[in-house]
């Protein structure tokens, strides 16, 4: 019975709503756009957070990255002098030997070089590292093997190519076993790594890494063959840098220890590098938590903005329902005379409001589902018509084009619930007002 009654009530409500199609449609628009903006806003927030999380997870949630950074120019003196900065091998010693929560500590030395095989050339990163580098960075070999501890001890003259390096320098050959030229020296190729998704930059702290254009060699080999001082000449300028280590990647055994370990690392590094400010410490887990916080702030702020439009929509609904009640005073009187209780009238008008807002909610949800596609279109327009031809906006443009809204599926029932809730909240007063009308007065109403 109750189902029949519900169906009947909704059916009658639809009849009354369809009596004024234009008015009902316009009233509904407020809710449609409110719900749409809630879903769209949450989707943008969700997309941003997902992206941030992925970036951070690529770095490894249990890793702590300690990186040399070139200090600002004024503190390094004249341009012509050798620039000495960054992590020292003694720092590595200090960190790797004194922190018990670490399971891995990888010293890394890197430099941009020209790679060559006969007439094929490519500019890439020469990375001196240890055997554990592959595991920590999720590198797998496609052919051959990665550097191992023996290569390290013997300072072997071997290297592993990144996927792009192998494909560009050895387009038709199997590179393993052959030699590749880096600057003036040759290295024997022992392996080729599989293609790996490159990481994107996180703020200014960490540049994005394209693992596919790397060549890996044992760090000791790097040290003895290239040394710490690297001089590069480009278009008449010369830069000389003396760096012992570019990066130390620390891996913590237990995720719960990451934050505490990070504090210890910070303290240790600060002892030697506080003055120069030439070392940066990046804790992906910290970034992950920040990203999570930013997501929550995003959701609250964007959600609130969207909620305002829902409230405005609700007020519109209330306004129309009050007008409807006035307009249908006579009908209310008739129903009361024929035996409708106050409750029946309340239910009738409340149902009408809820059907109105609920329908608006469904339309809004359907519109909201198109957000990712609509956003793609928006990005196209922005990139081609607003950002085109200007290069000053690269950072803004990059952030914008990196945004990929993702529908938060929990927001769909939420949005529907809110639209029904708006119907109840803003429909109750007009419905009660209708029910409280004096039947005699209502019947007399013209």
């Amino acid at each position, binding site marked *: 019975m109750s189902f029949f009654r519900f169906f009947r009530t909704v059916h009658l409500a639809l009849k009354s709503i369809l009596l004024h199609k234009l008015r009902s449609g316009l009233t509904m628009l407020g809710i449609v756009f409110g719900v749409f903006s809630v879903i769209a806003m949450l989707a943008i927030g969700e997309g941003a957070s997902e992206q941030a999380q992925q970036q951070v997870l690529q770095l490894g949630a249990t890793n702590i990255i300690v990186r040399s950074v070139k200090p600002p120019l004024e503190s390094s003196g004249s341009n012509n002098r050798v620039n000495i900065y960054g992590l020292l091998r003694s720092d590595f010693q200090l960190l790797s030997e004194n922190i018990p929560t670490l399971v891995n500590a990888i010293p890394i030395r890197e430099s941009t070089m020209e790679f060559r095989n006969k007439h094929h050339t490519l500019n890439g990163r020469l990375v001196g590292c240890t055997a554990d580098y592959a595991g920590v960075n999720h590198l797998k070999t496609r052919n051959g093997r990665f550097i191992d501890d023996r290569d390290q001890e013997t300072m072997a003259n071997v290297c592993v190519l990144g996927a792009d390096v192998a494909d560009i320098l050895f387009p038709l050959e199997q590179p393993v076993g052959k030699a590749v030229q880096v600057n003036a020296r040759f290295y024997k190729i022992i392996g080729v790594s599989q293609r790996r998704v490159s990481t994107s930059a996180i703020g200014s702290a960490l540049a994005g890494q394209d693992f596919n254009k790397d060549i890996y060699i044992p760090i000791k080999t790097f040290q003895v063959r290239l040394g710490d001082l690297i001089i590069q000449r480009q278009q008449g300028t010369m830069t000389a840098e003396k760096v012992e280590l570019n990066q130390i990647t620390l891996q913590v055994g237990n995720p719960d220890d990451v934050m505490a370990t990070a504090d210890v690392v910070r303290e240790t590094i600060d002892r030697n590098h506080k003055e120069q400010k030439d070392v940066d410490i990046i804790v992906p887990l910290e970034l992950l938590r920040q990203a999570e916080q930013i997501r929550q702030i995003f959701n609250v702020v964007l959600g609130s903005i969207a909620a305002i439009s829902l409230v405005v929509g609700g007020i519109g609904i209330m306004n129309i329902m009050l007008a409807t009640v006035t307009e249908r005073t006579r009908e209310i009187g*008739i129903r009361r005379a024929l*035996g409708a209780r106050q409750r029946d009238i309340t239910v009738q008008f409340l149902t009408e409001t809820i059907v109105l807002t609920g329908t608006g909610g469904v339309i809004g949800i359907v519109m909201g589902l198109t957000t990712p596609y609509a956003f793609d279109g928006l990005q196209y327009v922005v990139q081609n018509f607003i950002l085109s031809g200007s290069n000053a906006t690269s950072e803004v443009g990059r952030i914008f084009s990196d945004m990929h809204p993702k529908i938060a599926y929990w927001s769909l029932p939420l949005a529907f619930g809110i639209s029904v809730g708006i119907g109840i909240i803003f429909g109750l007063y007009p419905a009660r007002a209708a029910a409280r009308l004096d039947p005699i007065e209502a019947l007399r109403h013209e």
Partner: protein
Amino acid sequence: MKAAAQLVDLHKHYYLAGGTVRALNGVDITFPEGDFVAIMGSSGSGKSTLLNVLGGLDRPTSGQYILAGQDVSELSDDELSYARNQLIGFVFQSYNLITQYTVLENIEVPLLYRPGAPSISASDRERCLELADLVGLSDRLDHRPFQLSGGQQQRVAVARSLVNNPAILLADEPTGNLDSKTADEIMDLFVRLNGEGRTIIMVTHENDIAAYAHRQIHMKDGVVAGEGVFKG
């Protein structure tokens, strides 16, 4: 004869800023079952107030209103709503149909508000169709009020008033908006219903309409000023 409705020393007073208005000032009327009464009187005589009380839309200040053996003068709003639904059938001067509903749906409206809100069964539907047939509108079931003439609309209202088989049929100037020929048709319908044993209480100020009733009650200054019996 058993009384369908009975008014005992009924008072209705309105307390306004300028003083008390005694709209009904001790009315005693008994309506036997099967009665056909016309209540007459000039405006301000209290006949509208009397109709409101009879229709269960208003409560008397004092006195009793016994409808189908039940004192309805002190019922709660919900109970009074049920009394209007179950015991009283209304026919108004301006038909008062619901514009967005069809003829059949309009006849069904009182079924929506029955106590316990049972669903509309097949036998209910059949009864509505019979009533539509009774008032001669079987071929207009899916028409809307604006597609009907005044007389047809009033006949829908009559069918609607009968759907819950009420104890009394209350008609407030049922022919006030109709031309004399259509008015006669409606009155013939009333006479027929009365002939089937229905109790009809009708308010009118037209003598020739009142002449259809068995009995005329004249109201003046909130009391019954006179009563006459016609053959009808």
